[in-house]
């Protein structure tokens, strides 16, 4: 890496759009579901960027579009100095090594009939020219990093506990030494004691392998703990972005404020006393005009229905898409 690329963001996304057609019974498109609408942000080298929002806000579509599982309808994705939005499958394989995706349960992606050794060797066989000895060396190194004994290489997935399978799944991704790892809801459905060990593992691995994470989650307290910067999404748009401390201490968008007020927190005021947000998100296939949050927003005025608020910088640390921020 030369000196001038070191300061460049690892991933730059600008005006990314991904719509899904809504079809009637005759297969004719009657509307668009705007899962990602004009989304722009960047991920800096070595940071953890959190993407939060409730179900249907487009956070998983974002991860999948970056991975090329969905192709973008418009906009650019610049990864490590290269435009990757419109690559065909063959060209895509070349960058797959550097850009990896962790599903909710990485353990479930292990082949039940393969020993752990074979599962861990496979990505290296596909993506690198290392010979057997070098691969063995790399695999045992990674295995140690995720906290598993080398003896586990000769076991089958069913012989491991759920937590260990998860570790193997992570090891499998890390053998390639990716530059950016997209973690999609990595701890949802876990008990807190297991979640704690997994989060700690993510932190340790980030430090020892110099990883960059895009951390997609609906759990704000986990995001607050893990991320340097955070993006808040609502119905396909970024409503607020900024450094984690700034966003959590001084949320500027009313949606972020309600989201933070809704986290069940031990100690302090119970939200059962004063939670103010009413209503539910509108139908994503039939969005309100102007600001998408206005139907639930206590501050909404005529201007909100007429103009779409742009994401604008408030101070050096924070951006929000609200007319009143």
């Amino acid at each position: 890496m030369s000196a001038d690329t070191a300061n460049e963001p690892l991933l730059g996304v600008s005006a990314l759009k991904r719509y899904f057609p809504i079809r009637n019974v005759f297969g004719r498109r009657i509307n668009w579901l705007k899962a990602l609408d004009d989304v722009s942000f960047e991920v800096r080298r070595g940071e953890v960027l959190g993407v939060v929002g409730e179900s249907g806000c487009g956070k998983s579509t974002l991860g999948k579009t970056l991975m090329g599982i969905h192709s973008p309808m418009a906009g650019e994705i610049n990864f490590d100095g290269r435009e990757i939005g419109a690559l065909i499958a063959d060209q895509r394989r070349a960058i797959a090594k550097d850009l990896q995706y962790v599903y909710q349960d990485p353990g479930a992606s292990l082949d039940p009939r393969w020993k752990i050794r074979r599962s861990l060797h496979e990505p290296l066989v596909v993506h690198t020219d290392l010979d057997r000895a070098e691969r063995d060396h790399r695999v045992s190194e990674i295995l140690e990093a995720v906290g598993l004994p080398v003896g586990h290489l000769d076991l089958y997935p069913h012989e491991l506990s759920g937590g260990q399978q998860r570790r193997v799944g992570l090891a499998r991704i890390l053998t390639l030494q990716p530059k950016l790892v997209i973690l999609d809801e990595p701890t949802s459905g876990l008990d807190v004691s297991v979640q704690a060990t997994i989060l700690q593992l993510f932190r340790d691995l980030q430090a020892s392998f110099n990883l960059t994470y895009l951390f997609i989650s609906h759990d704000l307290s986990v995001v607050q703990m893990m991320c340097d910067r955070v993006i808040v999404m609502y119905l396909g748009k970024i409503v607020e972005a900024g450094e984690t401390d700034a966003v959590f201490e001084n949320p500027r968008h009313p949606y972020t404020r309600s989201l933070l007020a809704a986290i069940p927190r031990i100690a302090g005021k119970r939200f059962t006393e004063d939670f103010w947000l009413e209503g539910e998100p509108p139908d994503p296939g039939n969005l309100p005009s102007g600001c998408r949050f206005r139907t639930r927003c206590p501050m909404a005025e005529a201007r909100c229905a007429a103009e779409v608020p742009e994401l604008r910088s408030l101070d050096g640390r924070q951006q929000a898409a609200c007319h009143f921020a």
Partner: protein
Amino acid sequence: MPSPDLLTVSDLEVGFATENGTAKVLDRVNLRIGQGQVVGLVGESGCGKTTLARAILGVLPMPAAHIGGGRIVFHGEDLLQQDPDTVNRLIRGRKITFIPQDPYGSFNPLFSVGDQIMQLMKWNSPLLEESGDKRSAWPALFQPYPRARYRADREKVLEVLRQVQLPQPEQALKKLPHEFSGGQRQRLMIAMALLSDPDLIIADEPTTALDVTIQAQILRLLRQLVKDRGISVLFTTHDLGTAYEICDSITVMYAGQEMESASTEAFFGRPSHRYTNRLLESLPSPDRDIQGIGGDVPSLVDPPGGCRFHPRCDYATEECRQARPDTETLDDDHWVRCHHPKRDASAEPHFAGQDNVG
């Protein structure tokens, strides 16, 4: 809190037959729910909280489940000793109702919500006794629903739907379950649990499937409704934050044994059991390093002897391996089952310093 007991569970033992032998899912569990109290039952997956909730409701999967002993006393009578038919007719679904975790799976997708709610009201309406309608041996579907009572019941249904803040209740009754969002379906479930004027509602992780802002709305609504009516709630959850929001007192379970029980303030302010402390240390926090609990949840077929937490506990001694600790009362309504509880806890309040953000 000197509220009279509504329900007490004492020394309840439940086993499940598995391929490898009997899994002892509840091991002499005790629980008490006071009149008008919201009691949280917290613990990690597999700790037996759902089994306990189901045992109280009397809907354990028989014959796989086997009740080995103990008592479930509701309004002074042991539900396990009473004639099952009487319990079915007068208590289950009438005086004890249920809010499930998954409101979608609990509706029949082919019938309108109104049909299903009225079906429930047919034999569980509070007006049933006055009206003198008798339930016959025929399946409910083939029995007539007397018109006068139907109209009165329907009014009651609409009133409750308004109380759970469901928009346009008249139209809502004609809709099919898939036409509602998750939050609205959970509102319908809460309404159904309230219809028969119950004394106790068993809510099994009712907000786990919902987004946080919807969860906040539902919890606020539920707490308000049960407090207004003086209904007791047994609220099972794995989320300690949710338990803090809604519960008056909390009981924590681990691997089929109850470990500690206290008022919500004491539970979070002065946790005594070693397991409770480790659990609270596992919660994500921006200010400190978090630690999980090492090791795995034990097998319930062959559980560790003595205190079931001892293989993962830093303070375990020979005593813990041999004998299950008795309950030790620390304070009013605060007891713990541990040989070596954390006693100086009040000197270093655990979570008092953590600010509420937002």
